[in-house]
């Protein structure tokens, strides 16, 4: 390998490869105070730093048009109010459970009443 090739590979290795380290490094270089001399970076890393800065400057949030936001909001509100669940769908399950629970209570009471009636009948027969 030539000297130029070796130095190129060495320069490439200087870019932090570990992602965590890379993120920390980028954050550090991008918020570097302007009144202090910037650390000397190898050309490849310098390009990367510049690229990150360009992306921060270019990929900026945009505001949607106010008319659009208002109209869509109104349209969704109208649609949402029409989607209010009907009474049966909203409380159907609760009503079903209520009826089932009441039915169970009635069954238990009926069995108890029958048992009590039988016992009373038997005691009357024995007395006679």
């Amino acid at each position, binding site marked *: 390998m030539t000297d130029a090739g070796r130095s190129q590979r060495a320069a490439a290795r200087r870019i932090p490869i570990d*992602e*965590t380290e890379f*993120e920390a490094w980028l954050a550090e270089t991008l918020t570097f105070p302007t009144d202090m001399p910037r650390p000397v970076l190898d050309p490849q890393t310098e390009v990367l730093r510049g690229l990150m800065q360009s992306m921060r400057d270019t990929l900026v949030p945009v505001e949607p048009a106010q008319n659009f936001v208002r109209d869509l909001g109104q349209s969704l509100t109208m649609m949402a109010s029409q989607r209010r669940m009907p009474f049966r769908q909203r409380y159907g399950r609760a009503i079903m459970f209520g009826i089932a629970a009441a039915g169970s209570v009635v069954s238990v009471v009926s069995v108890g009443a029958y048992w009590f009636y039988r016992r009373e009948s038997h005691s009357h027969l024995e007395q006679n």
Partner: protein
Amino acid sequence: MSEPESDFELVKRIKKDPSAFGLVYERYITKIYNYVYYRVGNHHDAEDLTSRVFYRALTHIKDYSDRGVPFSAWLYRIAHNLVANWHRDHARRQDLALEDVILVGAAFEMPEWVAETNEQRRWLLGAIRHLPEERQELLILKFVEQLSNAEVGQIMGRTEGAIKSLYHRTLLALRDELLKNVEATETRSDEPATGDELEP
């Protein structure tokens, strides 16, 4: 002061009372719009797709259940799917407007600087738009939406480590593109002028 209602609580409320959907809308309209805008490159389609995202969300919110995927990720997935369909339908159309991100304000004061910066931005946006879909999505979520790697991972259905790795590879790919572009520009400027230009 009371804490703002979490997405989870809000969704529970919407399931009982859909009219509360307006709160979700207010919370996410700008974010979803930005995401869509940077994926399609023009306001007209961004508005159309953003509308569809919210209509679809309202229609299907009853099916949403938090199985480790936050509501925001669910919303971004809807946007992602609609944008993917849009790209499939518009495969032959190249829209690179993105007019809002181009500088115009300082044009009177420093026209040359503005022109150069706009050129760089146009190039960068073009390069980003030529990246594979998932890499574009990653850059938009990180830079425009300013989400953490963990949040981006939840939206894209990947681990935080995988996102960091993809981010790293994307930056290196863009840097290589940038270097190629610089070389090509230098080569063009080094070429001798044609005879036509020399004629009086």
